[in-house]
């Protein structure tokens, strides 16, 4: 008998998690716009509440439309399961709140989205969780920053906005030596370009608002567990391995093994914090996921054309993209991201802040807004927008200057994009 074969990425992107609806035979994923689900009888109700039966009870905890998206992303990532959340930030918070509490500590990359930096650097501190930030490519710094109370290492697969490539195998090895998991924000890469679990990451999340949706119409997040981290063997995660009074003394690891993290995250995190995904949002994100494998190659192809144009341009001081030989992570990118380094990148415009302002205001096809990963091309000035709360020192550490401009390359005709950039660059240098 020959070796059996898994369905390919493209097939999973279209089908994973969904059978045609048994009642209506609907081929498309139905939008189950409901808060709650009728119990068969009182015993069935009690069994669902006590986790003796599988199923849906209340849409804050789970919903059939959201479940299709969760299962599909998990299939694409190679995880044991996933949880849809109200946003990418909700997914990050859910991961942290499931693993730790006051008195615990995180080691995180400096190259993070500004919102994540705020959550770790300021907000969580108020709740007793401290974070030490380290330069992502300084492996010794990751090691040195680990304390006895460290519970998580965290970075972005491609750092924001300098596109630092996280050395997932090396940082995961450091995390595992310390018996803690590695969580990555995989928003910029999507499972099409990089599968973090295959390189050693234990948990990941997406701002599904970005490339997974691709249309810019819904705010959403997805948290995925590889199921590979052994919480019991680590001995550092009482939330998963000790009886939990909030659920009849349940020991989540004993109860469900590989599913412990997601079980606690759903049964406590969604129940108590409530940052769930709406069914309509899940449906909208699913529309994007179904074409992810077609869109990502086009995003990358157009990005490469735009970079080819920008790199030698007289109005450009520097283009930051890991596929360029002068990027410090060029070799690592070749290893981890052979299909491309995504469609979000930065460049430094000659003339600093005034030139940047003129450039952005002269663009016609690119939209000036605070988002990335849209089918439409986008532009922003990080120092005054996404990262404006960061100190000068933190900005420098994150590789941002007053002249840094971030582009997200969409799916328009690449030549139209180049002409738009050319016109705006000329205007900026006058």
């Amino acid at each position, binding site marked *: 008998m020959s070796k059996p074969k898994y369905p390919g990425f493209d097939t999973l992107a279209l089908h994973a998690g969904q059978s045609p609806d048994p009642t209506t035979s609907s081929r498309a994923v139905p939008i189950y716009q409901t808060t709650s689900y009728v119990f068969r009888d009182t015993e069935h109700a009690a069994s669902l509440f006590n986790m003796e039966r*599988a*199923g849906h009870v209340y849409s804050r905890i789970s919903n059939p439309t959201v479940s299709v998206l969760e299962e599909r992303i998990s299939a694409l990532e*190679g995880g044991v399961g*996933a949880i849809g959340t109200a946003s990418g930030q909700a997914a990050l918070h859910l991961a942290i709140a499931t693993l730790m509490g006051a008195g615990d500590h995180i080691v995180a990359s400096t190259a993070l989205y500004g919102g994540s930096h705020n959550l770790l650097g300021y907000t969580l501190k108020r709740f007793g969780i401290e974070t030490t930030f380290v330069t992502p490519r300084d492996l010794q710094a990751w090691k040195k920053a680990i304390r006895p109370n460290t519970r998580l290492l965290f970075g972005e697969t491609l750092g924001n906005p300098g596109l630092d490539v996280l050395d997932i195998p090396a940082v995961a090895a450091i995390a595992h030596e310390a018996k803690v998991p590695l969580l990555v924000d995989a928003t910029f890469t999507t499972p099409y370009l990089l599968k973090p679990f295959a390189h050693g990451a234990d948990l990941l999340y997406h701002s599904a608002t970005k490339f997974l949706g691709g249309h810019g119409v819904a705010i959403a997040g997805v948290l995925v567990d*590889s199921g590979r981290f052994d919480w019991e063997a680590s001995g550092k995660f009482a939330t998963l391995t000790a009886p939990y009074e909030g659920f009849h003394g349940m020991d989540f690891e004993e109860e469900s*093994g590989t*599913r412990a993290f997601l079980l606690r995250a759903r049964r406590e995190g969604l129940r108590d914090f409530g940052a769930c995904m709406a069914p309509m949002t899940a449906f909208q994100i699913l529309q994007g996921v179904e074409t992810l494998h077609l869109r990502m190659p086009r995003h990358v192809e157009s990005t490469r054309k735009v970079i080819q144009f920008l790199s030698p341009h007289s109005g450009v001081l520097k283009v930051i993209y890991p596929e360029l030989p002068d990027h410090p992570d060029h070799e690592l990118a070749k290893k981890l991201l052979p299909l491309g380094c995504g469609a979000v990148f930065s460049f430094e415009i000659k003339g600093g802040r005034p030139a940047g302002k003129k450039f952005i205001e002269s663009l016609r096809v690119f939209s000036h807004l605070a988002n990335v990963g849209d089918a439409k091309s986008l532009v922003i000035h990080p120092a005054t927008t996404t990262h404006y709360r960061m100190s000068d020192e933190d900005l420098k550490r994150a590789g941002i200057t007053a002249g840094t401009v971030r582009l997200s390359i969409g799916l328009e005709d690449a030549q139209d994009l180049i002409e738009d950039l050319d016109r705006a660059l000329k205007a900026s240098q006058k």
Partner: protein
Amino acid sequence: MFAYTAGHAFDKAKPTMVFVHGAGLDHSWFGLQSRYFGYHGWNVLAFDLPGHGRSGGSPISSVGGMAEEVCKAVPAEKFSIVGHSMGALIALECAASAPSRVDRIALIGVAYPMKVGEAFLDAAKRDSYDAFDMETIWGHAAQVPLGGNPSPGMWMYGDTQARLERLAPGVLYNDLKACNDYVLEGEIACPALFILGKRDVMTPPRSAKSIQERIPGAKTVLIDLSGHSLMAEAPDATLDALIEFFRT
């Protein structure tokens, strides 16, 4: 040997139900079903066989040896057994070798003889990931990768892979070989229930026929949309069949 008890202390006054997992797996494969019985008047002992899950030690190389270990570990004089796949062979062996102790047996996803394909055995012997792929893919109905998991948000293939990756080298081969080599000696006198998945490609329903014929009065429940991993693919139908069997 570790046993999950659904959070309840052993109570002599209650009947006892033992759950035994299949090759390379652990007690949590029965998560929903064992929890149900633990909260509905039964002592539950969902074992991790030696070398599996939370139980240390080396895996036992024969179904007979595993059955002996299970019988030894049950504190009750009489008990019932629910076994899946290899666990079902262990249940058969317990019923045959300790008839005075075993009250009823429920056999889920079982074949007899349980012959394992040469390619599967060989891959497991080499500790090749191919063996995990075979167990994962053949262990579920063909529609699973394209269907929905009854447990919200979970991906059945990923879950099976993650469980198998936690195994020590050689454990899966040990289990598959034990299944392959097992011969039932003696007869089964206690009431028996077969729960079989119509879409099971690993132990298709027809492969249980010879053992069904050896157990007088055995009942069978065929579950339409399930493959070999019935507790995950059809958790409610599996539980309903168990409830019905153990209630009567």
